[in-house]
């Protein structure tokens, strides 16, 4: 493939960032908006071309028979530490990176378009910092694209951090609001903390394997993979050897490689908001809603899933680490689903729903084993990543439209909006059906595959995740009814009645809703699998339907329908049932409403323990010893500088004398010392 298109995919968002960031203030608002949107549109088209070429062109470097190959489009040396340790910047094309290119650019373009309407009030007055907003969006898109196409783990780390930084900037976009500022700090610090583990994991991994490259790392571990990834059999054998010998040392009960992988997963836990590092994501909702749709629903938060998928063959080698991922994912999924049932702020509900759904993907990767249905869990995780990105972005953008119309985040201010905002209503309903897993919407298929994968692994996880899926349907429809039904609000009457938003905002809703309707029929088994092999012999529009495991599908459908029915009974009309439920389980309700007091726990640990016992002594050392020595140096330098000022008298005779004496002394001292 001609490298010009991949280069443009990265270069256009970067240029947009520079142009909008440097010259944005000189542009009028519409021009900045149109420029950013158009740039992203071009990027999207290029990404589509790339993905299409990769999957369907049949070129020998991309596909070999029925196997999708990894292809490095370009790989530029960037920093060379030693002969073998090189950091490169490149562009890796394989099924998951092509998939991510499509997801990121699509959502990003929709969000760019949507923000043209969202970032101004009802009178058409633009938000302050509108251009800055678009600059940051472009920066984020660039970083995220760079992350997914990374050819080596270090490049991924660099972009990983860039993504974190741009997320920080966007969460804190309303920097005059103290809550936004503290939310952005929280997000940055928590994910940074997790990235520490990631970095240590990278260092351990590359220390033992001697390489950063994904192709080297993932080709070797499992026999039979050599042909899939284009590395020579020799390299592969060499690395496999390394894994078997040097990674064997046991450290605190796990092999070194397990530790490395778990630490790397810790980075993923931070970005993907897994328990117990999830606390930043709900607060991140302080950012503008389009940002939540792009970053905190569809792209950045799945980076952790992507990371695990990227290194999946390695994880497969150390099954212990996969088990850890399953446990973390399952706990997170249940926890977030329970919390989502009681939140009032609609964005928080969606945030916890996101956490729960990402945990689904994690579980799916964790339960994937090649023995069962060609590693269906891997495919299902990626499939769910794709469908979830579409319908969750849709839900967030709907929430944005509601917030924009009502001016509040709480459903208590909404109620009964279905007549006023029909487009938003219908698209939101489609999103809810998709996430609840109702046939034929997108979520049904992907969630069904995940449950099948769980079923193949262990009965416990299957029942557990089915229950969470039921909870998902329940809390989403609770939200839906409380926003659009429940009762008629008086304040909605009259002149200021809420209404649907301008076309820039409704068009993305409609497009994403349409995608959510049909995305489930994409034959993922033939596009994205853990080893590149196709799962189906022939493909048609109904492939996914034909290959369903109906026993699992029917049960999950029944669960979802039952949950929706329960939500309908409880929330469609104003009634005392929710209140009764609350009294029935007062403790559970209180814990759920307060998110199981995780934030308070963190507060306690950081303020009472870490600050007092660790930070204070360090601060003392810093203030007195380190600052003290610096102050001492500054004092000495000032004194010395004062003392010798006479040397520079401006007197030429003296200059020459100093010169001469200096030259003579230089000679004389050397003579005395050396002879």
């Amino acid at each position, binding site marked *: 493939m001609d490298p010009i298109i991949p280069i443009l995919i990265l270069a256009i968002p970067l240029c947009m960032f520079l142009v909008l960031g440097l010259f944005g203030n000189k542009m009028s608002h519409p021009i900045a908006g149109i420029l950013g949107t158009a740039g992203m549109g071009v990027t999207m088209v290029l990404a589509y071309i790339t993905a299409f070429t990769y999957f369907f062109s049949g070129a020998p470097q991309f596909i070999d028979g029925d196997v999708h190959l990894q292809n490095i489009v370009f790989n530029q040396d960037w920093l060379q530490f030693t002969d073998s340790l090189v950091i490169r910047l490149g562009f890796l094309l394989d099924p998951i990176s092509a998939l991510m290119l499509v997801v990121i650019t699509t959502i990003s373009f929709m969000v760019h378009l949507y923000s043209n309407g969202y970032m101004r009030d009802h009178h058409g007055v633009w938000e302050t910092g509108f251009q800055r907003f678009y600059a940051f969006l472009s920066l984020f898109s660039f970083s995220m694209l760079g992350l997914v196409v990374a050819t080596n783990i270090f490049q991924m780390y660099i972009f990983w951090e860039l993504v974190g930084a741009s997320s920080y900037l966007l969460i804190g976009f309303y920097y005059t609001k103290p809550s936004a500022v503290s939310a952005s700090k929280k997000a940055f610090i928590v994910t940074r903390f997790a990235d520490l583990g990631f970095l240590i994991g990278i260092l351990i991994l590359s220390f033992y394997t001697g390489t950063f490259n994904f192709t080297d790392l993932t080709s070797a571990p499992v026999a039979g993979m050599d042909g899939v990834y284009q590395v020579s059999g020799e390299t592969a054998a060499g690395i496999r050897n390394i894994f078997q010998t040097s990674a064997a040392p046991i450290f605190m009960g796990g092999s070194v490689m397990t530790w490395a992988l778990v630490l790397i997963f810790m980075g993923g836990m931070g970005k993907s908001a897994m328990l117990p590092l999830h606390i930043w994501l709900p607060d991140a909702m302080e950012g503008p809603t389009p940002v939540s749709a792009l970053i905190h629903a569809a792209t950045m938060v799945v980076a952790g899933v992507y990371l695990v998928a990227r290194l999946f063959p390695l994880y497969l080698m150390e099954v212990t680490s996969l088990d850890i991922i399953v446990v973390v994912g399952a706990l997170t999924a249940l926890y977030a689903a329970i919390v989502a049932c009681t939140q009032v702020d609609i964005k928080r509900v969606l945030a916890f729903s996101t956490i729960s759904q990402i945990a689904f993907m994690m579980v799916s990767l964790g339960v994937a084993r090649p023995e069962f249905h060609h590693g269906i869990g891997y495919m299902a995780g990626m499939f769910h990543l794709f469908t979830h990105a579409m319908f969750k972005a849709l839900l967030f953008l709907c929430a944005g439209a509601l917030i924009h119309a009502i001016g509040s985040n709480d459903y208590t201010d909404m109620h009964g909006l279905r007549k006023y905002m029909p487009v938003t209503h219908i698209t939101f309903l489609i999103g809810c059906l998709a996430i609840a897993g109702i046939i034929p919407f997108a979520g049904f298929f992907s969630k069904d595959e995940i449950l099948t994968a769980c079923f193949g692994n262990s009965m416990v996880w299957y029942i557990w995740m089915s229950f969470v899926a039921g909870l998902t349907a329940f809390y989403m429809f609770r939200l839906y009814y409380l926003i659009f039904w429940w009762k008629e609000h008086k304040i909605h009457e009259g002149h200021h009645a809420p209404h649907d938003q301008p076309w820039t905002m409704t068009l993305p809703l409609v497009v994403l809703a349409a995608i959510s309707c049909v995305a489930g029929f994409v034959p993922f088994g033939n596009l994205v699998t853990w080893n590149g092999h196709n799962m189906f012999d022939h493909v048609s529009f109904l492939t996914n339907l034909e290959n369903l495991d109906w026993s699992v599908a029917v049960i999950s459908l029944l669960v979802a329908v039952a949950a929706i029915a329960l939500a309908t009974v409880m929330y469609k009309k104003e009634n005392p049932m929710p209140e009764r439920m609350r009294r029935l389980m007062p403790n559970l309700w209180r814990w759920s409403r307060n998110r199981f007091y995780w934030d308070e726990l963190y507060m306690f640990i950081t303020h009472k323990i870490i600050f007092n016992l660790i930070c204070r002594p360090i601060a003392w050392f810093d203030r007195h010893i380190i600052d003290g020595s610096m102050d001492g140096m500054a004092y000495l*330098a*000032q004194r010395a500088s004062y003392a010798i000022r006479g040397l520079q008298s401006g007197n030429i005779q003296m*200059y020459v004398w100093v*010169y*001469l004496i200096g*030259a003579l002394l*230089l*000679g004389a001292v*050397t003579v005395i010392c050396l*002879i």
Partner: protein
Amino acid sequence: MDYSQFLAMKQEIGLLVVFLLVFLYDTFMPRRSQGGLSVFTIILFAVFTVWGFMPCMGSCADSAFAGMYVTSPVMMAIKGILNVGVLIVLIQANKWANSEIQIMRRGEFYELLLVTLFGMYLMISARHFLLFVIGLEAASLPLAAMVAFDKNHYESHEAAVKYILTAVFSSAIFMMGLSFVYGLTGSLYFSTIASVVALEETSAMLIVALAFVVAGVGFKLSLVPFHLWTADVYQGAPTSVTSYLSVISKGAAAFAFLVILTQVFGAVYSDIWEWMLYALVILTITVGNLFALRQTNMKRFLAFSSISQAGYIMLGVVACNAMGMASLMYYILVYVFSNLAAFGVIQAIENKTGKVGMADYNGLHKTNPWLSFTMMLAMFSLAGIPPFAGFFSKFFIFTGAIAQGSIAIYVLVLIALINTIVSLFYYLLVVKAMYINPEQPVVGAFRSACSERIGMWICVAGIIGLGIVSCFYDHLLELSGTFGLF
């Protein structure tokens, strides 16, 4: 005599052609059409610079006049780096040269500048002390005229007098050292001297001779204690000349210094001059820093900053290996961009308002955000803050020095590192004045001239670009590996 030998001196001949064309244009074009002189010179020199980087130039190693003159890819590279610097100086000087007072004499400015550059070329390429001295004098004496260029400023004259007196004195010392060397070895050829020095016992005379040679070149580099002229001259000279003095003249001298010490006295490296340089480097960096702390005039401040920078450059000489050479050249390259960016801003403000005090920079970012931004980048780069180019040049020069491996050099690098912290203080003082000090801005908002802006853009691009793109250092390292000095 075989006159075709002259063809070996490709770059010198090229420069001579540029000089002659400028001279002819200045002399014979009617006064009225002389508006084009500056543009003509800049374009001509730009073409010459690009030509110097052509691949046909790069690969030729040659010598002429029985080995008095040599050229090789490394020398091409260092001359190319100097050319880039001179080009920026020419662009930045455009506004000043075309000001009402200077316009009649700007031709002389360009011609003198090109002649001194020619001298520097000879210093770099000479392999015989006679040719070297010619180069040294050609690079020194016309500079006095340039320093005195501001006819109406009494400081300019004073600076020129101080410069020429010190220069003459240092030349005398240098020659005296040379005569000792001649007396010891009976030759002025680098190679012959080197072979004799390698055989003989180390004598007191050789040490004294070496000390004098070091003092002579140390004058051009303004190493402490041969630096006292620097501040007065930098302050008094027109800013264009100051920037030329501080960057180009220094860069050429540093490279020539490296060549002399390694080519001629390489055999007595660990016996003699390693220790001399240790002392000089520590003195230079420290004293330069200590004086820079207290300055309130920007030009004087940069004079002391450039003294301490010269100390860092010397680390590349002390290392005495291919890495040291590569990092020295890289340091000069980065220094060209960083220092000229700073001088570009100073010049723009001086041309507009005549102000050069540090206090005049208070609140500059409110009125002139781009100028302050450029200045900030320059200061960050000079102080060595990543990811700007200055960080990498310092990093490489320290790495090169440490690769030499002795305990003493670790101590030396440690002292240099501590000094970078001190230097951070005064570099950031400027940034603080521009961005943080709450006083009302002294300098009003203005739009700097087109040429000044182009010059600053080039510098900013260099500072950021060299920090991100890594291939330059690798290339220089490759070239240095082929130099065969070590």
